[in-house]
């Protein structure tokens, strides 16, 4: 039998199944906590840090990723305080700077209120969100992909650097990768990186109603947990 508990997210009483994450509970109630590395039915690793929330406990607040935070009875969560918005904007900026060519990441960034990016563009094609690695390991049990190296050398690679025979070309890794979503029309060539501003309606919604799920296009393309439920 499912056990339910009650917690408070942004002032709203939320009933959630015991054992789920705060992020899942919030999404179910239409509270949009922006997220990138979270995929429904896969384990959460808190890689992108976008889903940070404030967790109040004993009069102190602690900032944690909501995807790795399990619901507890009587929890008090703030997902859209001034502090969180500021931190989240900064994280989104760093993600855009790392991989400016991704439509998905640009959209998430706009959703987080990013108007300009203050960091130098890295033009890498991976933000190490681990979606591909997790889908390959957990959903298919294939382990044809994985993280290799550590520190700044960490990257996703095939074992021994070549695609193994046991990779069945299922394409799940490509499907989930934030880089493979059709990019914006706005140019993102080296040296000309900027937010193209096509998502300004998103930005307006973000400013007016920062905590509501807007059923954004991003979610549809990017398999937001809400769309796949």
């Amino acid at each position, binding site marked *: 039998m499912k056990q339910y508990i009650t917690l408070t997210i942004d002032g709203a009483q939320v009933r959630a199944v015991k054992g789920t994450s705060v992020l899942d509970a919030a999404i179910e109630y239409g509270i949009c906590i922006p997220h990138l590395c979270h995929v429904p039915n896969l384990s959460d690793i808190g890689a992108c840090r976008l889903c940070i929330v404030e967790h109040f406990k004993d009069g102190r607040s602690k900032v944690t990723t909501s995807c790795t935070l399990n619901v507890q009875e009587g929890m008090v969560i703030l997902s859209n305080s001034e502090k969180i918005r500021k931190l989240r904007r900064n994280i989104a900026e760093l993600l855009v700077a790392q991989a400016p060519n991704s439509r998905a990441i640009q959209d998430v960034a706009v959703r987080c209120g990013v108007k300009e990016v203050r960091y130098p563009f890295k033009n890498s094609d991976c933000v190490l969100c681990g979606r591909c690695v997790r889908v390959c390991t957990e959903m298919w049990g294939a*382990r044809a992909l*994985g993280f*290799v190296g*550590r520190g700044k050398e960490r990257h996703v690679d095939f*074992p021994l650097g070549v695609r193994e025979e046991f990779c069945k070309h299922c394409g799940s890794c490509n499907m989930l990768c934030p880089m493979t979503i059709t990019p914006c029309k706005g140019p993102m060539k080296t040296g000309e990186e900027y937010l193209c501003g096509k998502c300004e309606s998103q930005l307006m919604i973000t400013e007016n109603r920062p905590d509501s799920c807007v059923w954004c296009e991003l979610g549809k393309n990017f398999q937001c947990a809400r769309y796949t439920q």
Partner: protein
Amino acid sequence: MSTATLESILEGRRSQPQQLIEVLQDVQESYGYVPEDAMRSVSKNLGVPLMEVYRIANFYKTFSLKPRGKNVITICMGTACHVRGAHLLLDQVLGQLGLVPGATTEDGQFTVERVNCLGACALGPVVVHNGDYHHHMTPNKLRKLIASIRSTSMEEIAHA
């Protein structure tokens, strides 16, 4: 360098995934590096996915994926060694052998590596040659060390 074969390394440890790092360490010790075939064989015999073996071999600095030279010269670049001139030693040995850190000379004799700290700061700068610690090194002493290694290896070749 011992010459245990892969068979003997794996003996008694098959189907024990928790033995992975120990097995890789033994492979590293007997081959001087972790060859691709060994990784495949270890993966099959221990029941660990190849990805995991590769990831671990890549993660730890102990494991080298490229063949290493007969003489591995490790130079400590820790803080204490650095202030006492470890970078001079590194420049010296790299210049003399014409290498970059981590590379091996073409004749397979020398590999030069840098390490962040050996924990022997009082003895710094420290240079390790195949496990032998040489303390209070100076560029001059290092030059002599390399010359003596060279002459011994020449003798070995002459004897063989």
